[in-house]
């Protein structure tokens, strides 16, 4: 418990500093950003929107560049715009961002040795689920067949009952 108290103190200090740090720079959730960039083609505008959604705002609480106002987010959107107009490809733009802000800024995690489990996890889950489901069905079918088949003596009794009924 003592270590928790120390931890709480440390975190408390960090919380104060971070709230000061971010108090002036944090974008307000309820104010959506509005840039007025001029694009030459429809495709460029689409690319801008897609890229702004794929990149995370480095200083916000888990929003994309397109969903944040003020600060670094504004600057980064401007950079994306300039790079699109400059003819850079989507890959080059993402690479640019990655070089400066790392994996944090990419909302779609890169496929690396460390993220293999992340990307293939759901597939593995599905395989396990299918396997388990198959096993359940097999057991159920055995029970099913069992209660449908009658042995010889039961067949006789059944026949007698049917004969009696009719």
């Amino acid at each position, binding site marked *: 418990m003592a270590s928790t108290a120390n931890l709480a103190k440390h975190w408390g200090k960090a919380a104060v500093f971070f709230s000061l740090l971010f*108090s*002036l720079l944090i974008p307000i959730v309820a104010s959506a950003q509005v840039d007025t960039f001029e694009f030459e083609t429809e495709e460029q505008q689409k690319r801008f929107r897609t890229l702004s959604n794929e990149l995370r705002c480095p200083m916000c609480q888990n929003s994309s560049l397109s969903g944040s106002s003020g*600060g*670094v987010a504004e600057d980064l959107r401007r950079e994306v715009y300039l790079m699109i107009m400059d003819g850079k490809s989507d890959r080059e733009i993402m690479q640019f961002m990655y070089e400066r802000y790392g994996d944090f800024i990419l909302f779609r995690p890169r496929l690396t040795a460390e993220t293999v489990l992340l990307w293939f996890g759901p597939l593995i889950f599905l395989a396990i689920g299918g396997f388990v489901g198959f096993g359940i069905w097999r057991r159920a079918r055995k029970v099913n067949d069992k209660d449908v088949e009658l042995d010889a003596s039961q067949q006789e009794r059944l026949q007698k009952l049917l004969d009696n009924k009719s």
Partner: protein
Amino acid sequence: MSKLKFYLPVFGFIVVGIALWRGLYLDPKTLPSMLIDKPMPAFQLMTVDGKEVTNEALPEQIFLLNVWGSYCLPCLIEHPTLMRLSEEGEIPVVGVNYRDRQDLALNWLQENGNPFVFSILDEDGRFGIDLGVYGAPETYLVDSNGVIRFRHVSVLDETVWQEQFLPAISELRNGRGE
């Protein structure tokens, strides 16, 4: 064997529980810098005093690069530490005036004191992007070859200086030379 499978959920839960418990000790908000062990980005910009500078102007020894702004409250809090470091000649401090206005920046330095050898003027934040800055104040430790070795985000007070910067500096001095 078939009875053991009923223990799988509990086992899974214990693993998740341990992960969550460990997770409480992590700080998910501080981004590690991508520029560690990489050279300072090339620049050709003005200082707040109106002089033109490039990478050549940077000190040829270990120095601090401090990202600040006149609007930034924590920058004011860490200001005394920076003043002390510069006045006692312990380490040169180069400033990056980030997303600010030149006149406001000069006023701020006038009112509070100027610990910086010079301050690069980065009004539109473009240089900050090359550094990977995401919010002032940030301080970089740069070695004598202009290679970034360490970044601290948020206030640089005496405790941070003692506990984080001094060990990093001595490691540089011992390991990789002045």
